[in-house]
């Protein structure tokens, strides 16, 4: 496909494919807009499908989560003290090295 709007570089200005104000530019423009719209619609479809899947499996996942996971709690004094102890141990180790 010959898309060159110029036949020589002598005195050339706008030299992009098809040339300014051409049918080729109009087609490219419409194609670009269509792809942009296609991109958004693909995204919306993907989201809708993903959200529907999640809604289906969500109750089962919630039940599983409730069985296997312990709820998060703030560090208790024993957890905090063991953490502090581990810090001290690593500090001692560093000093020895």
């Amino acid at each position, binding site marked *: 496909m010959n898309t060159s709007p110029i036949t020589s570089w002598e005195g050339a200005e706008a030299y992009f494919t098809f040339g300014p104000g051409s049918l080729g530019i109009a087609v490219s423009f419409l194609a670009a*807009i269509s792809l942009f719209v296609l991109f958004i619609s693909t995204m919306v479809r993907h989201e809708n499908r993903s959200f529907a899947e999640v809604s289906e499996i969500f109750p089962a996942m919630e039940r599983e989560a409730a069985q296997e996971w312990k709820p998060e709690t703030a560090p208790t004094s024993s957890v905090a003290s063991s953490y502090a102890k581990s810090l001290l141990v690593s500090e001692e180790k560093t000093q020895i090295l």
Partner: protein
Amino acid sequence: MEELNQSVEMIGLTSMEAYYWWCIAFMILIHAGFMSYEVGVSRVKNVLASAMKNLMTLAVVIPSFYIVGWWIYNAFPDGFIPRTDELAMAALPWSANMGPNIADHESGIFWGAFALFAATTASILSGSVIERIRMSAFVILAALLGSVVWILAGAWGWHGEGWFLTQFGYHDVGAAGVVHAIAGFFALGVLMNLGPRLGKYAAKGKPLKLSPHNLPASMLGLMLIFVGFFGFLGGCIIVISGENWITIYGTPTNLSAFAFNALMGLSGGIIGSYIATKGEPFWVASGGLAGVISVASGLDLFHPMLAFVIAVIGGFIAPYIGSFLERKNIDDAVGAVSVHGFVGIWSILATGIFASGYPNLNGPDISLAGQAICAVVVMALGFIPGYGVSYMMKKMNMLRIPYEAERMGLDLTEVPAVAYPEGIPSTPEKEDFVSKSSSDKIG
């Protein structure tokens, strides 16, 4: 002699092109920074979705800005009625200037710099809405903000013939109003319809802390944004070969002026936020950004010590405004409304307070009244479309992800990849293995 003149002119044009080329590259660092910032602020279940949102920002804003944004800038400096002069027509996508053209060294490179400004506005929105907005809603809002709303403000207030300048002597050299405040108030409008993240507020409305999953990543992100800002601010000056460089309003300036005040603003903002929060890392890092934005409007005019003071104030007020908004049920995950929106307005007003009387070439002198009037218009121009379009999306159930998706996280729901497939295990030191193997031998 004529050949020599042509040669000199060509050197000037190509140098100018090279200058803006690298400004564009540095501005992409702003997006790298926003990505790291938002990923760090997100909880583990949403990190990839947040990162994808930053990529999508570039993907949608650049082509949409090509299609309409550059034309809006060149056609609407007078208000809502478009011009039909040569400059406006040359900005249409099918014109001779909007593609490779041997005779035009300016259109592409200026369009590129403005496209990155546009993407920056959308990135500002991006952070504030993380973890609960639909990606499709975000990309539509990003395209609207980046390719229509901010650039309309740019045509009005960041243009040598914009009506902000010709009627009110508006001065906003570093785009604190037309980029940052516009984006911040647009984000505010969206947040009011989007609502807070699940678990953000206790039953009685008391805000709870949703801690960033990786605060160091957020702080690194802000450092990248600081680097990118030098591309952004560099893109705010007009390069003229062989002459003094000028501001977007045609008044003389130079990069020395910008360097003094951008750096003093950065340090002042960090200090201001440190004083306000007693060293809370998230806000101290954001304070640097608030500082640069605080001095952006009068970047070419302030004495550096005054810029420092203005930036300290900007950095100081940002956390308080953020906290106030949080108490008002505005869940802005990254403080964008405060740092970009309100501090952007502070920047406009600070120029009116501290730089009144400076002459303009195409309008009245800079004044506090002129700056204040334009600040109100900027707030309205950002807020109204953000609120209005997101309200329509909300009514059409297009704005927010479903409850189940939010509980389970966006990564698991819609991203076909895993951020941390091996978790983040602590790794042992080599010595641990050595001692273990030697104890095995003894045993």
